[in-house]
């Protein structure tokens, strides 16, 4: 088999298999699943593996060269207002069509859908422009983050509690699998042709700022509209008895997601055409590659989303309510943490982040250590989410100290870790979190009779927060290691002629 294909298959199997096995183990030992849900689940897992592989390949072939290209052309430009306008427009265009945003807008009925969608899109656009301006004006990322999150924290006391969890969730939700690879590549492109020292660390931080946009805009809307109630919709396991039912369920869902994904990918395809028309950056071969890459991304995401929505979401809800109904409901916490540990790997955009970090840092921060760090982070966040469901703890008690800690750390760790950490928050909370983890929490919460809006929601926000801390702790330990080795290694005494050049005869 072709070695590239083999590598991709292996990568996506390794990403999806662990979470599948965990759920299988839970289904066998703790919460019995009927054959119908189980068969949907396994078929979903197969779709997930295929979809994941195609998506990764497609993002690598299409999103990365496109984002990088636009970034490079932006930094070549001499016209600042123009660059900022393009940044703003890009942010709005890629967000407005994000399918997750439609779901979010339905969950917040107090605000008209169109108002919410456009406000969030504008939020992403403005903050993407701010992120670009930050790179150009060489403002320290942690300063901007401190100001913006400070604002978020202040606003969080003004809006009603019901609303708060949804607002924080929106930050993680709107930076979805299509926007993340594109924005990340944009950052790499913006700094790739610069010859100065800050170039590598400036590659990151765009997703970080872009995901504050939605939080702030939803919070501000919350102040104006003062929504009283919020509702949610939930998937229940389909009635599947025969193989034909199984096929019917998926053939019904596939066209639905085909339309949804088309809607979210078309704006980026349009951006590609306009960009190529004006700049003629790509030659014939590159254009073909990008076109094929878009096709892979499209098909891959359809398969992934159908798999996760039809196969994983109902099982998540069943496991959640099953565990909550059992005598040992405290099991929710360790099992939630176990699921959290393995679920990050199956987020489609995570591999892309890991890979980009590894490439930009030339292997200094390896994909493996990124993965481990994110897994620990998300495990803790799911544990906390379950704790909230069991105890009804106000989300402010976790989110506020968490962000304060993250902001304090951002002053202490090497700069590049700040960008990577705050980026990974938006990346870690993708479709897997919102379609498997969230139903799990809702299922558990309903069974326990808690308030779904305040207790179950907010799980996404926690998943988006803990990576900030986990990755910065990695940065801190890295720095400690560096200073320690600098102390113990007394520099060897160099002879004075060390820089002399020795020449050899040509042979």
């Amino acid at each position, binding site marked *: 088999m*072709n*070695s*590239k*294909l083999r*590598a991709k298959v292996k990568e996506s199997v390794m990403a999806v298999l662990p979470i599948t096995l965990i759920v299988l183990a839970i289904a066998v030992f703790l919460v019995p699943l009927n054959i119908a849900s189980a068969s949907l689940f396994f078929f979903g897992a197969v779709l997930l593996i295929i979809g994941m592989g195609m998506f990764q*390949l*497609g993002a*690598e*072939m299409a999103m990365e060269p496109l984002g990088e290209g636009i970034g*490079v052309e932006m*930094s*070549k*430009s*001499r*016209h*600042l207002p123009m660059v900022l306008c393009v940044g703003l427009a890009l942010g709005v265009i890629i967000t407005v069509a994000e399918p997750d945003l439609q779901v979010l807008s339905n969950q917040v009925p107090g605000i008209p859908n169109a108002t919410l969608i456009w406000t969030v899109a504008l939020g992403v656009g403005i903050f993407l422009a701010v992120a670009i301006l930050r790179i*150009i*004006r060489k403002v320290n990322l942690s300063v901007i983050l401190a100001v913006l999150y400070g604002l978020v924290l202040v606003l969080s006391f003004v809006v009603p509690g019901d609303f708060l969890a949804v607002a924080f969730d929106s930050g993680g939700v709107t930076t979805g699998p299509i926007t993340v690879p594109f924005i990340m590549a944009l950052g790499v492109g913006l700094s*790739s*042709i*610069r*010859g*100065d020292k800050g170039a590598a660390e400036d590659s990151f931080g765009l997703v970080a700022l872009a995901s504050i946009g939605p939080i702030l805009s939803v919070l501000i809307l919350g102040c104006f509209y003062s929504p009283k109630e919020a509702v949610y919709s939930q998937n229940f396991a389909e009635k599947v008895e025969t193989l034909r039912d199984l096929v019917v369920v998926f053939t019904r869902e596939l066209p639905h997601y085909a339309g949804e994904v088309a809607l979210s990918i078309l704006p980026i395809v349009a951006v590609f055409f306009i960009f190529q028309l004006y700049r003629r*950056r*790509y*030659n014939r*071969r*590159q254009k*073909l*590659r990008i076109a*094929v*890459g878009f096709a*892979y991304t499209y098909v891959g995401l359809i398969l992934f989303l159908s798999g996760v929505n039809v196969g994983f979401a109902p099982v998540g809800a069943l496991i959640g309510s099953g565990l909550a109904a059992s005598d040992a409901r405290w099991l929710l916490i360790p099992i939630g943490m176990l699921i959290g540990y393995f679920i990050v790997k199956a987020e489609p955009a995570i591999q892309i982040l890991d890979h980009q970090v590894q*490439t930009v840092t*030339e*292997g200094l921060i390896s994909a493996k250590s990124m993965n481990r760090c994110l897994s620990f982070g998300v495990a803790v966040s799911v544990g906390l989410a379950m704790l909230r469901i069991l105890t009804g703890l106000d989300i402010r008690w976790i989110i506020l100290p968490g962000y304060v800690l993250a902001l304090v750390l951002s002053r202490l760790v090497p700069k590049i870790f700040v960008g990577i950490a705050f980026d990974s928050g938006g990346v870690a909370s993708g479709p897997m979190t919102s379609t498997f983890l969230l139903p799990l929490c809702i299922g558990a919460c309903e069974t326990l009779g808690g308030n779904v809006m305040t207790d179950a929601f907010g799980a996404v926000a926690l998943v988006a927060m803990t990576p900030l801390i986990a990755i910065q702790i990695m940065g801190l330990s890295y720095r400690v290691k560096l200073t320690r080795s600098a102390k113990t290694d007394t520099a060897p005494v*160099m*002879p004075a*002629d*060390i*820089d*002399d*050049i*020795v*020449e*050899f*005869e*040509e*042979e």
Partner: protein
Amino acid sequence: MQEKNTSPRLLMLITQLKFSEKAAQMLRENGVSLLLSAHAEGTAPSEMLDILGFGNTEKNIMIAAVSRPAAGTLLRKLHKELRLGTANTGIAFTLPLSGVSKLILQLTENQTGQIAPERKEDANMTESGYAMIAAIVNQGFSGEVMQAARSAGAVGGSVLHSRGIGATDEVNSWGFKLQDEKEIVIIVAERESKLAIMQAIGNSCGLQSDAKGVVVSIPVEDALGLA
């Protein structure tokens, strides 16, 4: 200070990612300090595979200075213990150096003490039959370079992404130094076909084309994993 027998060699390894760590470990164990390590891409075997996205593989290029006697032993050891040079692993070769900083000379001098200077010919090691060709072209043209090179008999190559530096610094309006994106295509080929390959690249991707390419070649001393 012109001692011909102590002239160090530049050892280059172009390997699949998973082998690069093992190889680096082995070099360290043998007292060789790595000078540079960089990410590279392997080129696609055909244009169709490239467009379909199944072509390029991730690779790692490592460069170290080694003493001449140590070079042969190291190559043999890499082949024997890591199976470097077999399919899907990578290649290694040495290039002569005509001048170095004194520090590098001192570093490599120590190696002769640790590694016995045995230089016997091995079936897997070929001497002097190869040359390293490097083509430096504009961003996006590595595919065209490989297409031309293949038509003249080259088997494969690796691409490094880099930045070009012109005669004058171009500074944009907000004060960043800007450098054009370039791609460096490295091809190791037999000496007999070297000229034809270079000429083919020059014809299709030379300075008169959009690729704005220049081509150079360096003689390879010992090689592993070729032919």
